[in-house]
């Protein structure tokens, strides 16, 4: 492309737009390094003063230790990993059956699955809450894990599309070798699907991490809080301690940003090809 003036105007526009999307995160980080004295100054200070003092991380230290965010982050990591693992297992099984097997009720199952994608969780949350209450699962992680395992309509849809595009000769070779359905799935199709499975895992992990309603309803014991709920409870209780609140926000998004940084190419590619995020 020729470096004309339109090129530079466009480049500047792109940089400005990108800045508009990144600025809140930069502002969040900068203000999480302000001391109690500086955070509430008018006009706002741009330079975070703690960064140039001896205890640069004192806000982070008090959020992590005094307000227990270390524990909550740990809870989130393992619960979300487990939820995402379960989801890719269940979705790949269902996606495989829907893509390659013939059975009565296949179309109706698939249509119902697609239809329920459109329904907001608030429509069904009340009976769901009642079920988990009656089962005595309050203050356990089961109400967060089980719905994520079983109701991954997006993932099923995505993997069904993928499996039906796997080249036919692979299937034929399997038939000629006389493999059974489980071998066909595990040995032939699943190894082809590593990249969509990884994408789905990351997407499911992020969705679980960012979910607020279910963890808020089902978990009331403080030690069991997930980090997103902990952050929102912290906001409700100590809403004026902005430097700590923003440090907590940074802590709650760091794992996601790290995951995103490593996987953004795959996530963006999968969005481009299927438009599915969850």
């Amino acid at each position: 492309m020729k470096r004309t003036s339109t090129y530079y105007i466009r480049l500047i526009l792109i940089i400005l737009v990108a800045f508009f999307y990144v600025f809140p995160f930069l502002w969040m980080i900068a203000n999480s390094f302000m001391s109690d004295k500086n955070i509430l100054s008018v006009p706002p200070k741009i330079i975070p003063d703690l960064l140039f003092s001896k205890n640069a991380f004192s806000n982070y230290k008090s959020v992590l230790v005094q307000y227990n965010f270390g524990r909550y982050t740990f809870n989130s990591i393992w619960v979300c990993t487990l939820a995402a693992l379960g989801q890719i297992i269940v979705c790949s099984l269902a996606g495989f059956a829907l893509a390659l097997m013939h059975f009565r009720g296949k179309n109706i199952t698939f249509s119902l699955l697609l239809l329920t994608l459109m329904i907001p969780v608030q429509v069904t949350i009340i009976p769901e809450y009642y079920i988990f209450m009656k089962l005595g699962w309050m203050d356990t992680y089961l109400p967060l894990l089980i719905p994520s395992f079983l109701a991954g309509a997006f993932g099923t849809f995505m993997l069904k599309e993928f499996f039906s595009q796997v080249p036919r000769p692979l299937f034929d070779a399997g038939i000629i070798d006389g493999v059974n359905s489980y071998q066909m799935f595990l040995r032939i199709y699943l190894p082809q699907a590593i990249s969509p499975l990884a994408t789905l895992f990351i997407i499911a992990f992020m969705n679980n991490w960012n979910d607020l309603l279910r963890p808020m309803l089902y978990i009331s014991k403080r030690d069991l809080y997930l980090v997103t709920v902990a952050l929102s409870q912290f906001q409700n209780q100590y809403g004026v301690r902005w430097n700590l609140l923003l440090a907590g926000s940074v802590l709650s998004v760091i794992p996601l940003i790290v995951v995103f940084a490593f996987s953004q190419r795959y996530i963006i590619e999968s969005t481009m090809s299927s438009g599915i995020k969850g």
Partner: protein
Amino acid sequence: MTQTPFRWHRRITPWIFILPTVIGLLIFRLIPIFSSFYLSFTEWNLLRKAQFIGLGNYVEMMKSREFLMTLTNTLQFSLVYVVGSMALGLALAVLIDVQIKGISLYRAAIYLPVVTSAVAVGIVWNWILGPTYGIVSNIFESLGLTAPYWLSDPKLALNTVASLQVWKMSGYYMIIFLAGLQAINKDVLESARIDGANAFQSFFRITLPMLMSTFFFVLTITIIDSFKNFELIYAMTKGGPQNASNTLVYDVYLNAFVFYRVGYASAIAYILLVFVGLLTILNFFIKKYFVYSLD
């Protein structure tokens, strides 16, 4: 597939594969939809037995000014969200559809809010837009203007939250539009340019018509996503001030789990379901109309 169905597996096998999904579909989606319908005719606080009260909840709803406000808020939120996301998503995609060094970095930057939690996004925007200490009101004041109360003015709160939801999600729609743009045959645009079409003409006469299927795909998703506003409302306004940013989705939570009026909340959930259904049908007919008129 052209060949006749060939069953290479036992009859029962597909059901083993799909069993967890079917159980999930039944227990967490279909059965709750039906039981919510029954619950919407009851008065219930989760602890005692549900009392059947006929249409009582629906009658109360129709008489409640607050509920009618919530209903119009929901419509307004969806409208702002759908129109805003489509326009911004398309504009961003057109802007970013270029070969520049580091373009994937800019793309990722715009996508960043999509992957971060609405709670963290809500908190930082509360800080940015807040009165007195917020950077935006300070910029306004340094220019000699009075900053509006973005979140505490009842006239503004809903639009502020809806716009921020657009900001948060627009990177996602940008990527889908970008995929659509890149699928367009560049030769057509090139020959139009040779024929003397200017940038506007080729955008509105060629690019946009060829983007129609992507356009309706994004329309469908934005309509569905326009109801996913619970987290941001909870983090930013809690439905306030004076119910001004309350939506159906938030109202279900409020009535069921804050006021413990579960029957009434179920009735709201049902109105929500009807609402989603109507918008989906509307979307279906718009699509049909456009596809015919384009032929």
